[in-house]
């Protein structure tokens, strides 16, 4: 279904929000990604990665603050999100490879990077794979936490595990017929509020205006409906945490401690034992997972201080 319009035909403003100064496309091994830049094109570049079910324009307040600090801020819509291509397959390795394509299109020299949530995890892996391409890294609420062992008796474990596996397969059986539910811009904002309960409705209305498309039967968020919260597979947080100890470039971790639906559950106590020497850790006790949206000025100041 072809959208009636992509950018909003409803003019919505939000204090401090500024659309990107430039937009471009990157071919990531056959996948077309949309890349956005804020700030002077000649300024030193800074890579910025969004989280799952977000999109680059969720940085419309945060990125201009970083640009004002003297950076050319480069963010992209990850595959299946925003204005980038919706692909047939999605995986962690594919997201890391896409990030590499954006890096390649941005700078041959080393640069700093910031990633929020899943974007923090993706960039963590990219920095570890290519440490000489990065100078510093800021992980904003994207460090995983150890999962508590499920409270299930040993003899009941196969049944419990089977329910998880069958649920994944049932999802995959349905996935061909999934479509994102259309609605009015207001309905989309209210729907997003379930994932972002701490963010102002005015902000969510603004996000509709830059992150949804107007189809003949209503508005839809530009996120592939086949994407699913949470993965299925053998991945375990310890693999990421253990590697953090030898993270190859200076690292800053920013946490928002108020739990909410999208939180990864990390706390200063859970993260600190895995940080490499010299890493900085800042926790906002009065903020949730989207700390860079709740407190853009404070987080930008913190990050710019670290990058200086």
């Amino acid at each position, binding site marked *: 279904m072809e959208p009636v319009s992509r950018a909003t035909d409803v003019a919505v403003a939000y204090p401090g929000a500024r659309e990107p100064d430039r937009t471009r496309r990157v071919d*990531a*091994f*056959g*996948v077309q990604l949309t890349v956005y830049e804020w700030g002077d094109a000649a300024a030193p570049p800074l890579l910025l990665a969004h989280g799952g079910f977000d999109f680059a324009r969720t940085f419309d307040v945060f990125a201009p603050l970083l640009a004002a600090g003297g950076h050319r801020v480069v963010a992209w819509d990850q*595959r299946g999100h925003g204005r980038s*291509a919706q*692909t*047939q*397959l*999605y*995986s*962690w*390795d*594919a997201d*890391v*490879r*896409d990030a*590499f394509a954006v890096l390649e299109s941005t700078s041959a020299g080393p640069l700093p990077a910031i990633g929020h949530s899943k974007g923090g995890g993706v960039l963590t*892996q*990219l920095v*570890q*794979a*290519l440490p000489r391409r990065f100078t510093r890294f800021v992980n904003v609420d994207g460090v995983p936490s150890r999962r508590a062992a499920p409270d299930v008796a040993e003899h009941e*474990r*196969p*049944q419990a*595990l*089977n329910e998880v*596996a*069958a649920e*994944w*397969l049932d999802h*995959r*059986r349905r*996935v*061909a017929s999934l479509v994102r539910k259309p609605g009015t811009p207001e309905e989309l904002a209210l729907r997003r509020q379930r994932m972002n309960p701490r963010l102002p409705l005015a902000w969510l209305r603004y996000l509709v205006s830059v992150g949804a498309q107007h189809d003949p039967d209503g508005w839809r968020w530009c996120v592939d409906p*086949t994407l699913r919260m949470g993965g*299925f*597979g*053998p*991945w375990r947080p310890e*693999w990421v945490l253990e*590697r953090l100890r030898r993270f190859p470039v200076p690292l800053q971790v920013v946490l928002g401690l108020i739990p909410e639906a999208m939180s990864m559950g990390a706390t200063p106590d859970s993260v600190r034992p895995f940080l490499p020497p010299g890493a900085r850790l800042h926790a906002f006790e009065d903020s949730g997972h989207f700390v860079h949206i709740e407190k853009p000025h404070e987080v930008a100041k913190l990050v710019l201080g670290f990058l200086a």
Partner: protein
Amino acid sequence: MSERLRHGKVELALHRLRGGEGRTLLLLHALGERSPLDPPVDVVAWPGPVAALDFTGHGDSTRPLGGGYFAELMLADADAALAHLSQATLLGRGLGAYVALLLAGARPLAVRGALLCDGAGLAGGGPEPRDPTLALPGSTAPADGPDPMALLELSRDVRPPDYAASFLAQAVALSGLAPPVWICASERPPWLAGLTTQPGVGVAPLPRALAACWAAG
């Protein structure tokens, strides 16, 4: 005869290699392979129908753009074929053997025995992640061969022994079969070596395992 099955945005090719009465033997090929045109010589003794699935990016199934493969996605490919067949005994080679084990655990009532055989992609990326590297494809590949992204990504996916064993435990507890899983492979990567000490696994040459699966009903 081949049928097209839908799995998400991918079309899968399910090949009916031989008709017949009774339960279908579903062949799951190795990494980089495709389904055979006829029942292989080592399965001709199977009394029932024989079918074979081309995984995503292989054979006559869709070759997606931009990769994104992982073993659990191939598991869902095989589950799409299983949904179409209602019940099947699985014979997996290499990558297909790992997928067969996962499916035997995830769909214990529909999978009536899983036979795990040697083949490419049996080991995957090993029991735990290696140092982080990028999964970058080579510059050229034949247009009609397997997707190079599939070869790349599915040889990196991590296969911890305890994860594999958890699927065996599901099959043992919920299938009613004894045993639900047969090891016919001679190669023993860590995930498979770990299974050999678990209850509920038969170790036998393929002909004996096939006969036992058919007899188990």
